[in-house]
């Protein structure tokens, strides 16, 4: 089960991770809906782009720009959080959406927890695979932490000051 578009849905994608013995060049990518590491994509793109549906995931030490020119080829792009507090994934997501114009599913995987979910959605994630030991209904609540935000980001294209007519100091209100 994952969270997608604010609801809990079943998920038929699996994530390929390289074991220590495997290399990106030689690992056998199973058939079906699979999200492969960036390195595997780069090493085996000739074969992989013939798949009916393929996904790729980035580590937080990799960069959105590594997928430049390729984003149309993926049904899903994931960012793996090795630790929830590794904030690089937030900028990767922002860059995928804002700089590369990626519009498909953007999924947070790895150490994905309730208390980061609101921020994750703001920077462009629309799918979340919470850490397996967590109750997914509880994690979903994280999306509702705030009803208003100041800044623009991916979810909200305009900052608050461009979206609303905020009041100035009533003492100086001459209108």
């Amino acid at each position: 089960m994952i969270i997608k578009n604010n609801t809990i849905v079943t998920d038929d994608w699996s994530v390929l991770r390289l074991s220590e013995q495997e290399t990106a060049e030689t690992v056998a990518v199973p058939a079906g809906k699979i999200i492969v590491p960036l390195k595997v994509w780069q090493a085996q793109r000739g074969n992989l782009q013939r798949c009916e549906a393929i996904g790729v995931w980035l580590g937080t030490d990799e960069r959105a720009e590594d997928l430049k020119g390729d984003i149309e080829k993926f049904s899903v792009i994931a960012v793996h959080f090795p630790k929830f507090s590794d904030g690089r994934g937030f900028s990767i997501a922002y860059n995928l959406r804002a700089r590369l114009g990626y519009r498909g599913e953007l999924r947070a995987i790895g150490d994905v927890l309730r208390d980061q979910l609101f921020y994750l959605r703001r920077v462009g994630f629309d799918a979340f695979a919470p850490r397996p030991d967590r109750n997914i209904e509880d994690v979903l609540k994280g999306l509702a932490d705030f009803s208003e935000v100041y800044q623009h980001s991916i979810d909200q294209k305009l900052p608050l000051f461009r979206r609303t007519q905020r009041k100035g100091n009533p003492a100086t209100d001459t209108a």
Partner: protein
Amino acid sequence: MYRYDEYDQTIVDERVKQFRDQVRRRLAGELKEEEFLPLRLQNGLYMQIHGYMLRIAVPYGLISSPQMRMFAHIARKYDRGYGHFTTRQNIQFNWLKLEETPDILADLASVQMHGIQTSGNCIRNITSDEFAGVAQDEVVDPRPYAEIMRQWSTFHPEFAYLPRKFKIAISGATDDRAAIYAHDIGLSAIKNAQGETGFKVLVGGGLGRTPIIGSVICEFLPWQHLLTYIESIMRVYNQYGRRDNKYKARIKILVKDLGIDEFRRQVEADWADLENGPGTLTSEEVDRVTSFFIDPPYEALSDYNAKLNEFQADNRPFSHWMAKNVKPHRIPGYAIVVLSLKKPGEAPGDATAEQMDFIADLADRYSFGELRITHKQNLVLADVRQQDLISLWQEAGEQGLTTPNIGMLTDIISCPGAEFCTLANARSIPLAKLIAERFENLDYQYDIGEITLNISGCVNACGQHHIGNIGITGVEKKDHDEWYQVSIGGAEGNDSSLSKIIGPSFTFFQVPEVIERLIHIYLRERIEAERFIDTVRRIGHAPFKEHVYANDFVAQEEHNNGCGVMSAQYDVPYYSPRF
């Protein structure tokens, strides 16, 4: 000052609700401590020696009297009757219970306050000039821009989990009173030849383990681009700042490693995309926020010299106070008053609940109900009529708030130190007290003149010891005893410099004598009106070093009158896991 609208209030109220549930989940065991840690830190909550410490944000150091009364209420209801004002213009309470912290945050939200981002690896509370809006040398009022940045940085989704903490300071006067060279980003609001407002942007300054003075990344950034340009700096740092070693994770290390030119190139490459985009500030928004910082209803007064001069002539303490604690105001007939929280014998920066209530009343009666907290851990009444100075001095004196030592040797900046903080190697506050008592004689202090003395209990530099004319740092030694390094030559402001260590470290009781010897050399060598820092810069470290180490120190026992380890403030039992 700025007042919340329904958007600000909603965001702060929802934060309280969110944190209340996080505390509940922590107490229920649903959140592990390591998961809870960054969440509580981003609400200003630390686990210290005595329990939980809460750091409350005072945005750019500006508060109202009801907010000050709320501090008094928190001190009484949840703490032990006092609070500690910090070098980043915030206030800390040291003795809290975790389960009560959501109620404290709810109380704070009721007066438009919070602990948001006062700790953690995120953009921290933004600091500014304590004389903003009233200083004679102000070019641009920095407060509206500080408030705009406060809102922008509050819960910025992309920059909540940075490699390390991130501090921004802004100044708008010719004299920098916000230590902008010692911040991750320092902003100097200026006007160009055409009279347009913009910012000189500094990046990569900071103290701590690797003190560095910030470098100029942009000489003149037009005001419209303030937020987008900072966004690009943050994005480059978030992606490329080191995360493998927390001691090398600050932006200053990245800027140093890349060089300022390459760092600038990367920032501007990112910014190319944002320039003139939706994040660009509008004049409507700047005007809206600025409307909260209009002048209070000043009366048309002229300077009130005759009566004050007369009173000063007859009253030496008042005359001292006028000379040291009262600063010129840009409006005729008004003055800026600094209330000293540095009375010898008291902990620097501490105020009791009674003092807080009293100070709030003073603000109401003498200064349009507003107060500022300085990064030197004093308080400011920014808009006092000169004709009220005598009565204000008399009243404030009854509460011990008129020590005429602003900018003098006993105006010591000090971190909480090892009695409170788990990071500290040594005590700071008792050392500050010992030094203040030794140099209490005002004539001696005035002879020494302008000098800054900063104490940090460890290398993390919360007492900003690198930019003190004299800096003292608690250091760790194998025997786990308290040792202090002494350095000289640091300065903040326009002529910022970093201090250098004079030599091997000293014991607790040797430090006052070391300072005495440093002062001795200064008094012997100074030319005319030279300040301590000027003499150090002119003659170098060698004469100071030579004199300090020339003679042995009198045995400790003779100095401390047999009291051994001094008792700490407010009868805090003295212990630390380190000893």
